């Protein structure tokens, strides 16, 4: 992970830590959440950090075998925004299995420079969309009737699209992170028995998919925040 990514991860962790956990106490979660068969639904806005693909030169080969650069490129995937949808199924009081579908929109960026015939440097872009489906385990680390701190980790499949959908590459996506849930309603009478907010920070690991660099595996920070509800 490069320096920017680390900084973003720290900021994400800070954001998570500042959410209202002041009421944390060593009391078990509410009865409705402890039955082991709770199903919660979450819809969240997702923020993805940037990915640096590094530099690559368009090289010719000199007679002595060393490269002669025609021009240089430096490429990255800009920060993105998208939507997450989670379905959490309580396996035990603390352990949940979670299925996640996500969509995000990003911008691929390449800067050209150092042209051997002095072409003007340029910033080239292309839009990228990512769809993913993941399975995760979510572990409640600490909980009160109002709030809980959790860790989550999982992996799944992703599809990235560019060129108005003409270029399509599949890959593997994984995540490790944690966050908080805060209940506005918990075990309330009526159809909507649980309602609250959820925020989390995570490290996202992607392998393959569309890239502008030689590395097939990339690590980026990400965060999401949204509402969850249960019936």
């Amino acid at each position, binding site marked *: 992970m490069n320096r920017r990514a680390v900084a973003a991860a720290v900021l994400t962790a800070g954001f998570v830590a500042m959410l209202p956990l002041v009421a944390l106490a060593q009391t078990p979660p509410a009865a409705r959440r402890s039955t082991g068969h709770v199903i919660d639904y979450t819809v969240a806005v997702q923020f993805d950090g940037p990915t640096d693909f590094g530099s690559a030169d368009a090289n*010719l080969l000199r007679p002595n075998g060393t490269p002669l650069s025609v021009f240089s490129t430096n*490429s990255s995937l800009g920060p993105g925004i998208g939507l997450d949808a989670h379905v959490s199924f309580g396996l035990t009081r603390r352990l949940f299995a979670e299925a996640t579908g996500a969509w995000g929109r990003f911008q691929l960026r390449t800067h050209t420079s150092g042209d051997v015939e002095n072409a003007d440097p340029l910033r080239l872009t292309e839009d990228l969309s990512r769809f993913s489906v993941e399975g995760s385990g979510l572990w409640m680390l600490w909980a009160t009737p109002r709030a809980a701190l959790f860790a989550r980790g999982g992996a799944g499949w992703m599809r990235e699209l*560019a060129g108005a959908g003409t270029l399509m590459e599949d890959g593997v996506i994984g995540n490790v992170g944690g966050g908080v849930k805060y209940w506005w309603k918990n075990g309330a009478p009526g159809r909507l028995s649980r309602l609250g907010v959820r925020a989390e920070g995570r490290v996202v690991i992607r392998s393959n998919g569309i890239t502008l660099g030689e590395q097939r595996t990339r690590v980026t920070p990400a965060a999401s925040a949204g509402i969850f509800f249960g019936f």
Partner: protein
Amino acid sequence: MTRRRLALVAVIVAAALTAPAVHAYLKLGARVGSRVVAVKWSRFPIRYFITNRDVPGVSAAQLQTSVARAFATWASVTGGAVSAEFAGFTSAEPVGDGVTTLGFRARADMDRTLGATTFVLDTTTGELIESDIFLNSIFDWSIAETGQAPRFDVESIAEHEIGHLLGLGHSALGETELAENGRRAVLGKRAVMFPIAYPAGNIEDRTPEADDIAGMGDIYNTTSFQRDTGSISGRVTLNGAGIFGAHVTGFNPSTGELIGTFSLTADGSFVLAGLKAGLYVVRAEPLDDADPGSFFDTDNVVVNVNFKPAYYSKLVAVPAGGGSGAIEVKVSAK
């Protein structure tokens, strides 16, 4: 069967003047009626003879071994779509006589030419019937495994000429500088089919580059080539008008591959084919690193070299088995 013997440059010009955008790479073409068709072999293996003449440092048998390796290299990059078979040694010269022959000839009148390729083809179909290659024995030659300066490597030059024999024209993926004697020296290149050779002793041209492989795949267009690669099409324009003869390259930052083509019509149209799926930086530059006559018949067409190199303003997405939408690379005058 109508047969004609054609010089390489004349064939390129036939393609360049009339080839539509489907001529993705600078490959050899022949006029058939009102059409221009790709010059290619349709019957394999190509049976070839080797002249039974030794030159200092290279015997006829050694020449045959080097030529066989060069044919095998091209065969491998096409997945076996082309193949060749050594038919024997001959005392005949490598000239049009109905038999494909490769060998040494002393051509003092061509003191800047290491080798040349000529063709006999069926002018009703564009099918190649015969092709002959000579390596100019006024130069010193070597078959040494790692090269032997100041001798030229037989396999490298044979590979370039066999590229022509199979239907490839010249690539412009190279940078040169003019020497005091008026000759161009290679600063760097990235294609066996660049018209100017590396200095004597160099063996880099034994290995085809992405540009060469794309060109050969485009000619013999195997199923895997169609399935696995895509293309970029578009125009190169100066103040809205097309430019003929601009050199257009596509660079894939994730693979480092660099592939080139030319704008081949008056409206500046080009097609870059044989690209692996991915994102590309597209750049257009004037054809100023070799004699334009190496690529086009400059008696009949005007190659515009009076513009500054420029990049297309976006990354271009290329899908496997498909093409990008049409793009326009806008350049400005020098």
